[in-house]
Structures are given as structure tokens and as C-alpha cells.
């Protein structure tokens, strides 16, 4: 196996891993909020979270490209304040992936919270425990399958992302060139052997990940309700 293949695959997993960790930190509070709130703005918040499901990735990529560009206000501010350039950089890819994979983390967690009986948190409050302790000791431990689903689907989805990455990351080896881009690249160069190597690896990994989710969820559901 040549070096650039390994480098590209490692970068792909690094991007997916970092994105998943960040999204887990965002997804739990956001999913909790969406499952609890009765605010009239809830539909709007839900719509924004779900937009990446229906938007063509190129639309999102295009706007992120404009926003991150150092020639525009926000990009210039980032550049001046943090000397951070999000266009064609790994950091930019992470930000774009976080936005693009948001629903894949938030939806399972939100429905996990909603599926828990309201009396569980109420019982905890009556026993004198605050919201935070209730969240960590009672709610989260009883929705492990939902959290696991969110983690794995987010990871897999980020590995498979193409459009946004192409728009915002470009194709810099070791910096922004991930596996899905590499396939496109190799096909363009009529290098079918290497393209197949990438494609087959992604296929096998995606299959294994999804199989894992379904098997784990089946056994967790069984052990909890038997």
C-alpha cells in the first residue's frame, strides 16, 4: 500500500473522529433542549438542524466558502483575530463537517430523550437532584443505544461526505484530501486501480459500521426490555 493512500485514509478518519467528538458535545445539549422545549421557535430550530438532510452539499459548501473567504467580513475577522483561515484547510473541513453532519447526531439523541418517560426526570427532581445530575446519572445512561447510533452514523456520514469537502477543502494531500475526494481524483486521472482501492475500503468500512450499529442496538434493546 502506498504512502499517499494511508495518509489519505488517516486524514479521512481524523476528520470523522474530530467531527464526531465535537458533534457529541453539541448534540447532547442541543438534543436535550429540543426534546424539552415548548418554545414556539422549536420548529425553526428543528428546521435549521435538519437543513443539511435536504440541501445539496454544494449549496452549503458554496455559502461556507463565501463566509470563510478572507475577502469577506466573517472570514476576514477570523483571519485577523485568530489568524484562522478556514478555506482549503483542515480546520475549515471540520467546521463544514460539523454543520453538515449535525442532524445525524442531533436526531438520534433528541429522539432518545423524547423516548424516555417524563417521570424518570421528575422522580430524580423530587429526590432532590438538579437537572445536570439528572442528565448524567439518569437520562444519558438510559439512552445509550441512541447515543451510540448518533456517534456511529455521524462518523460514517462524515467519512462518506463529498460535496461540501470538495467545495471548501479542495484537494490538498495530507491537509484536505479525504478518501471520497481521492476516488474522484483517481478516476479523473484514469487510475482505476487506486480508485477501486479507496472505493472498496470505504464500502467495507461503511458496511462494517452499520452492521455494528444494528447488532449493538438489537442486543441493547433486548437486554433492556426483556
Amino acid at each position, binding site marked *: 500500500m502506498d504512502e499517499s493512500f494511508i495518509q489519505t485514509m488517516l486524514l479521512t478518519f481524523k476528520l470523522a473522529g474530530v467531527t464526531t467528538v465535537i458533534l457529541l458535545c453539541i448534540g447532547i445539549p442541543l438534543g436535550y433542549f429540543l426534546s424539552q422545549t415548548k418554545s414556539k421557535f422549536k420548529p425553526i430550530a428543528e428546521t435549521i438542524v435538519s437543513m443539511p438532510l435536504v440541501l445539496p452539499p454544494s449549496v452549503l459548501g458554496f455559502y461556507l466558502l463565501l463566509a470563510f473567504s478572507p475577502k469577506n467580513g466573517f472570514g476576514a475577522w477570523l483571519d485577523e483575530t485568530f489568524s484562522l483561515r478556514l478555506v482549503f484547510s483542515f480546520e475549515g473541513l471540520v467546521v463544514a463537517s460539523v454543520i453538515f453532519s449535525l442532524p445525524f447526531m442531533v436526531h438520534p439523541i433528541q429522539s432518545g430523550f423524547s423516548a424516555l418517560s417524563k417521570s424518570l426526570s421528575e422522580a*430524580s427532581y423530587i429526590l432532590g*437532584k438538579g437537572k445536570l445530575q439528572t442528565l448524567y446519572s*439518569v437520562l444519558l445512561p438510559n439512552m445509550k443505544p441512541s447515543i451510540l447510533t448518533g456517534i456511529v452514523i455521524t462518523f460514517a456520514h462524515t467519512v462518506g461526505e463529498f460535496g461540501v469537502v470538495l467545495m471548501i477543502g479542495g484537494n490538498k494531500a495530507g491537509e484536505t484530501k479525504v478518501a471520497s475526494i481521492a476516488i474522484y481524483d483517481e478516476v479523473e486521472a484514469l487510475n482505476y486501480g487506486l480508485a477501486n482501492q479507496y472505493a472498496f475500503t470505504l464500502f467495507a468500512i461503511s458496511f462494517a459500521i452499520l452492521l455494528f450499529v444494528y447488532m449493538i442496538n438489537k442486543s441493547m434493546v433486548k437486554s433492556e426490555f426483556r
Partner: protein
Amino acid sequence: MIQINITKPLHTADGTIDLIVNKEIQNGDFLTLFGKSGSGKTTLLRIIAGLETPQSGKIIVDDEVWFDSEKKVNLPPQKRGVGFVFQDYALFPNMSVRQNLEYALKDKKDTKKVDEILEIMEIENLSKMKPEHLSGGQKQRVAVARSLMSSPKMLLLDEPLSALDSAMRLKLQDELHSIHQRFNITSILVSHDISEVFRLSNRVFKIALGQITDDGSPSEVFSNQNISGKFKVVGEVLSIQKSDILYIVEILAHNEIIKVTAVKSDIEALNIGDKILLSSKAFNPILTKI
């Protein structure tokens, strides 16, 4: 003493009604909130626990203000120090029975308290089990045990026995009764089962469409509904009271209370909760226009 004077609009299947309660409850009482579903009885219980907020009014418990809409006081459930047994028990599935009880401890080191309550509720043998492996009756006991962990001054029970079969119900009714005696804890039970009311409580609020229509002892609230009489009815013995040389047996039949006099030989084989056949050979039907 608990002073409640609150109003809250309820959205029910029959449209919006107002829950209006203005009552005092004595310490040590076993009060039942009796009424049809949608009448507001569970809401009243949840308001006392702090799980729901009234629109206006006051709740004062032993001179401590729990809720006052004018002064914007609303003590959160964490600070009210009540025990609450939910209809679905609300045991934490990720914790064993023992861990469920420990979670309720104020002082984590007070493991003696856990042992004590496990023993009182006779659930020591279940302590390592997860709630999913417990039967309905066992879950109910664990739920009551957990609610007693913080030595609450008030125990609120939201139809805790409604999911159990009748034999288990009777057994657990006795246990609730003895817990009430033992801890002398003010208890408020939501129920729509008349026999439960008789067996447990010394006071009943009958609630209909958000209003308390009757308030008194179970016999006062239920027994004056109708004049008894009529051939054969199957019923359940609610109470047996000695009255001079006779005994008065209260029987629940078709959700109505019938009082029957009996002599000693009649009641010897009778226990509270027994199913009986009540029959009459000769009687004077009384007609009353309704």
C-alpha cells in the same frame, strides 16, 4: 398542616375546565383524591409536588410557603422534600434496586438507611436486581422504598396500585397502610377505586371537573349516595364495624356502597376484601324520582 388555595386551567377532552382547590389538610392524614380520569386529581397531586405550577394562589406547608403567585414564590420539587410514587414507578432502569435507593440519599455515606428501608419493605433479596427483572408488585415496593429514603414529610401516591391484580393490590394496600402508621407520614393518594379509599384513607376529596364536590370520611362521602335494597348483588366487603350488639358491614357493589347489618355469626368468616353475595328475600322497594 397543608393549606392549598390554587386555581389552574386544565385542558381535558371535554374542553378547558378550571381546577379550583381551597382546602386544608392535617398532618398525619391519609387523604384520597377520588374522581374520574380528567377530573384534575393527578394535576392537584403534581401541583403539590411542584411538578406543575398553578395559575394563581398559595400553598403553605407547616408555615413554609411553597407557592405564592402574588409574591412570585415557587419552590422547586427538589426543595419540597416530598416522596412521590409514580403510576409507572419511574425506577431508574440503569440502576439496581439498591442503587435506586442510594441515589435518593442526601448523605451518600448513609448506607445504614438503605439497609433499614430495604428491610422494612422486605426487599433485601431484590437489592442487586435491575428494575426490568422485577414484577409489578415488587417495582411498586421499590418505588415506595425509594420515596421514603429522604424521610419525607409527605408521601404523594399517583394511582400506584392501578396496574396490579386484585390480590397484589390488597396486599400492597395493607403495606401502604402500615407505612402510614409507622412513619406517621401525611399521605395523599390518587385513586378511582372505592375499596382502596375505604381501606386506606381517613379523608376523601371527591373531585369532578376540577372542583372538590365532597369532602369527608369515606363513609360520609360515599355511603349516602343511595338507599340500599334489591335481591342479589355481588360485592366486596369494605369494612366491618361493631355497633352495639350488631355489626355493620359496608359492601361495595357496582361501585356503590351498601350498608348491611349482620350478627356475629354472619361476620365470623368474613374478612375485609372478601367477595360476597348480598341477597334479600323480602323487601320494600322505595321509589324515588331522580
